């Protein structure tokens, strides 16, 4: 009787865990896609482009001051 109950409990826990992990992995897929799309937005890309533009401006300033 105790053995049967233990086996049943293990099966129930395994089913609950399996369902929870399945739900989480679906959520992760949505989340990671959302994160990827957000990271590709023009707002997210602006600092990278601005960083390079400011470096170019600095280089131009250096050139004009040395010439």
């Amino acid at each position, binding site marked *: 009787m105790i053995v049967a109950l233990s086996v049943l409990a293990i099966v129930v826990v395994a089913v609950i865990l399996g369902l929870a992990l399945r739900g989480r992995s679906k959520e992760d897929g949505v989340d990671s896609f959302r*994160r990827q799309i957000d990271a*590709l937005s*023009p707002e*997210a890309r602006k600092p990278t482009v601005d960083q390079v533009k400011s*470096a170019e401006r600095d280089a131009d300033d250096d050139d004009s001051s040395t010439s």
Partner: protein
Amino acid sequence: MARDLAIDLGTANTLVYMKGRGIVLNEPSVIALNRQTGEVLATGREAWQMIGRTPGYIVAVRPLRGGAITDFEITERMIRLLLQRVGVSRFTRPKVVICVPSAITEVERRAVTDAARRAGAADANLIEQPMAAAIGADLPIDEPVGNMVIDIGGGTSETAIISLGGIVALEAVRVGSFDIDAAIQNYVRREHGIAIGERTAEEIKVAIGSADPTHDENQAEVRGRDLMTGLPKTVLLTPEEVRFAIEDVISSIVASVIRCLSKAPPELSQDFLVRGMYLVGGGGLLRGLAERIERETQVPVRMSNVPLEAVVLGAGHVIEHYEALKGMFMGARR
């Protein structure tokens, strides 16, 4: 603590982007070696100036051809020296994202990542050049619209259709601006009987080369070695002759763009008529090329604001948002 790096390992030039700093290195992908000892004598711009002008014991080579590693050992040494120049040592091992042609084989892919790891990278991941170019050219690839990018490099020309952060269609040919230089070299040798070096051929391309007739049709004086007498000789070359010489290469590039367009799903295809296609890469700077592609495809062609840096800027953005964008690495989607 090492700063993570993005590398555009191009056939012609290598650009390095450092996280939080921007582009820290932009040099020709050339290495000069002592033929007898195998010792590295110069890399980058210094080595480029040696091409075709070295004594017998020195050889200045481009270890990448057609976007592929032709000499694994030399490429590894070149990457190691480049990483050293931007501050990477045995104690500072950064994560590295490397841009490679999309048509790269599994063996070539492994060769690039192994070269970067041996050169000091803690982790090396690859990203397709057209995808990086689209990110760097600031195209709205986060939206469900058709974005088309044509990346014409030294050894490869790639056209990609991108929507919602993924590649929808792709077409790549192992033909690029070095093939244009080689076609000019062959034409001058065949029709004028003089031998010219690859740097001279490149200078001719920049001076009078075009893919379509232009307003400015000046001739160029070309100096080389007469194949009959062996003496220095000067000939005049017209832009029309250069167009004839490079026609096969240009046709091949235009045909690959048309093939990519024909692979586009109809919903995205209509976007191109309004939004146009974006041209990036050094080869895209050839006069008349945008007009020629536009004429043959009936789709507007626009030049990127940063044609030479678009690829490394895109990879740089990926390294800045490494966790969010690691799903874009080659292999991650397969």
